[in-house]
């Protein structure tokens, strides 16, 4: 049975596509966005997170694994030596240790996603997100097909930075693509995400040609990707597309600092304020002035 690593399953996910949804977050991503809100999803391999505010330094973890040490009331952790076996998470009495990247089979995932099916109704469904879910295109294909067989609406939330073949596999079983658009300029895109956007833009064009329903999601961060020039370039690129049902503007926030610390990644969150609803309204106006039709401000 095909399996994948995941970081979380979120229920009553009302912002990952239409209606009430359950979102499965898969692990591994092909971008390194500086504003990443889910740093625990970046690497494909399992990782141990230490939620330091919850840790009481009781030392139970140190009894089962040499990677943990409590020295002078401080929890020290040898991340390099950690095999991410998860044994320590079983002993932690305060819930401070969490293993991200447990494996889940298609059948197990389907069972989890179907638990809330009574709430989906005609408008809701399931969303595969990440990380980048299409890095697991085989798993996604099987899972989406199962959902389709059950009459459940399936959405894929993608950054688009995967081979087109990955899209081709899931296309027959996907009702909606939530497609991230970071910025139109390739060099800036590389600076913000560690990767150029050529493949992403090319895939978006191909996806549009399939006439599948696409919702563009633009996360806007001050001083990063929401200057008038950025927005005009984005608007000009997106205006000609035929099958984009909406462009949803999301506001950057800096609430993920503790997550970076928990998984031991260098914190790259830009020190800029979160844009307010009025700022996003102004951004929406710029996009509309370029001929983009349905722009949705997620803060309204």
């Amino acid at each position, binding site marked *: 049975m095909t399996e994948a690593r995941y970081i979380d399953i*979120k229920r*009553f996910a009302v912002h990952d596509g239409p209606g009430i949804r359950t979102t499965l977050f898969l692990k591994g991503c092909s971008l390194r966005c500086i504003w990443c809100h889910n740093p625990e999803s970046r690497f494909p391999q399992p990782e141990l997170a230490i939620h330091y505010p919850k840790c009481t330094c009781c030392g139970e973890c140190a009894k089962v694994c040499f990677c943990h040490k409590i020295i002078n009331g401080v929890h020290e952790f040898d991340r390099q030596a950690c095999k991410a076996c998860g044994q320590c998470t079983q002993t932690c009495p305060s819930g401070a240790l969490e293993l991200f990247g447990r494996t889940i089979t298609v059948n197990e995932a389907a069972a989890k996603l179907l638990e809330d099916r*009574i709430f989906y109704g005609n408008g809701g469904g399931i969303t595969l997100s990440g990380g980048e879910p299409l890095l697991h295109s085989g798993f996604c294909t099987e899972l989406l097909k199962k959902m389709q067989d059950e009459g459940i609406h399936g959405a894929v939330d993608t950054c688009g930075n995967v081979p087109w073949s990955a899209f081709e596999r899931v296309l027959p079983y996907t009702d909606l693509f939530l497609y991230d658009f970071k910025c139109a300029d390739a060099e800036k895109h590389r600076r913000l995400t560690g990767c150029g956007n050529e493949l992403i833009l090319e895939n978006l064009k191909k996806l549009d040609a399939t006439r599948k329903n696409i919702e563009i999601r633009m996360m806007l961060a001050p001083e990063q990707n929401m200057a008038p020039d950025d927005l005009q370039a984005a608007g000009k690129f997106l205006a000609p597309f035929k099958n984009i049902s909406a462009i949803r503007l999301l506001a950057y926030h800096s609430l993920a600092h503790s997550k970076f610390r928990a998984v031991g990644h260098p914190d790259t969150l830009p020190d800029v304020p979160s844009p307010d609803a009025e700022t996003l309204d102004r951004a929406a106006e710029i996009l509309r002035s370029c001929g983009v039709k349905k722009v949705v401000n997620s803060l309204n």
Partner: protein
Amino acid sequence: MIFGTYAQDEEYLWKKFRAPQFDPCTGIDQDTAAKEIMRFAELDAPAPIVKARAFEFLAENLQIEVDPHDFFPAFACWKRRPCPMSPLLAELRKRIPLQQGELWGLLNQSGASNIWIDFDHSVPEWDEVFRLGFPGLLRNAMEWREKHRAAGTLDVAKEAYFEGIRITYGAMLRMLKRFIERAQGHDNARCHFVAASLQRLHDGPPQNFFDALQAIYLYFMFSEHIDHLQVRSLGNLDWLLTPFYDRDLKDDTFTDAQMREMFDHFFMQWGSIDNYWGQPVYLGGTRADGSTQVNHLTHFILEEAAKLHLPTPKIQIKIAANTPDEFIDKVTALIRDQNQSIVLVGEEGIRHIMTSHGYTEEDARTCLIRGCYEFGSRGRVHANTTGVGHLNMLKPFELIFNNGIDKQTRKPVGVPVPPLNALNSFDEFYRLYIQELDWIIEANIKVVNDFEAHLASINPANVFSPTIPNSLRTGRDAFDDGCDYNNSSLLTTGFGSAIDALSVIEELVYKKGEISLEKMAAALNANWEGYEELHRKILTFRKRYGNGIPEVDRFAQMLSRTLGNRINGRPNSRGGVWESSVHCAKQFIHQGAKTGATPDGRFAGEEMSKNASPAMGADVNGVTALLRSALAIDAASFPGDFPLDVMMHPSSVKGADGLAAWRQLLRVYFAGNGVAIHFNIFDAAKLKEAQKNPEKYSGLQIRVCGWNVRFTEMAKSEQDMYIRRAESIIE
């Protein structure tokens, strides 16, 4: 000027029930009345007549006012504790021969249950009040007296019943006359406007929109502030007021704006009274013919309530399958904007419960909502249910782990407990838990049946009874067996906490063998002191109620079935039956204070879970998982009530998409026979900010249980509790 003065009137309205001033020339003050009332205890007459004479004395002698700042008269019996009638009723109660006083004391002192005599959950037949008016209710009762006399069924008890009504309603009409004269004595257009309305109500039923509001207010004051019987709903106001509103608008009697101002004054009466338990009204649902009740008056009332933004009256919205989407969205948007006084009640679930217990579909459709969110039939058949006893679902654990000795009283309570090492399987443990629970249920029923046989002698319902057709037909007090259904509800406290405790015992003691019962007993009796690691382990135990885990939710099913089987349908002592309820009111705090540490990780004295909700912070899988857990329970096990509390983060329900998702959530919950559900929508950051800067958040309300309070007026420990809860919810 009669209208357009609400802003100037508001100061008077706030003080009306908090620090009112009366002209001494109009009569005696409340404290004097409470002393003088005791002379009626000397009367050699049946209880209904003794009480009616006392009522008459108060109606004729209390100070009164009709203030130019108000559309509604003021009574000098504004203080609720004590009501002027209280000392006399205490005396009447002493005359009742009780057999189970000692057992009653043990239950209440131990916290195994908490029982008091309940006269706080009745609702008049408002349609009868509107159809007949005060003089018509009196005339109707007297006609029934004559019918009984002619039929030869007017025995001594019935004669006292009808005579009590005659005296009481006669006094009410004379008190109206006093108000009229007082109003006419003021050189003020509004006072004269009020006098004219009072005159119409003196002579007959309400004639216009204002008379209708006045009739509700007056009935409330006569019943609750003088006759000492709470009025636990002002009725389905959209149904009651629509004919008056439409006619007055058509005839140019009043404009919409004028009726809105009258209504604002009307609601402000209860804003000023400000009982912590809140004054219920209900809206929406369906009519007897199955069409939706949601109309322009439903919107009118909702809009005025939102504008006033008062913690009380609290508004119960009946949601049916045909309730329009846009109306539900309007309601939830108001809740999202911190109108926490709104609670949602599902007609489908009520239909499921009521038809499972012998009521018809129409009884269910037209049921009234009363109290916090309880329901009951009205109209064709009237149900008057008392809430008598709060079953402490955690007390059995304390008894099992403390050799059958209650820690509060240090007395044996419940069935004898065998040595813990004799409980070789979880089934044996569970059986003992149920035996302890059974003992408390039986004791509760024994105590209540003892005193409920005498309700009509303890507090005769002279104002209430004539509104109930069956009461007049039978000549029986509406708190005796005068209503069509005269039921007694046994409420439940700590339902979710008990499930968690059972889950911990099953998993950690019997399945994994990680803790022995003896060690658990030692930890609980030490209130976890010295057992901190074990305590932390249990706190992170995830198999808890409210997470949609079938293995855990089966305990919810088992316990609800057990409660239903043991309680529902048992005869009470006034011609009705017992009903199980998973509603707990404030007892989750009070009984928590009387209960030792429990296996779910609770410290001694801490609150328990409330209603059908999980323990605070136990539900970590989101709102859909929480609803799945609740829907795993057959609501028909709880004909007394089945309420659920939900806290959600504002980001979950923001925008039109959020409201649409919320509506879908509600539709699914109600279609699955969920009953009452109320929401708190806020984030921890906002609550912390409000705690730090209360002056900026004086309007922030929290739905506590069946009522709501201002966050800034809560004790810091209670505020902290809600902040912890908010921190645990998922965005």
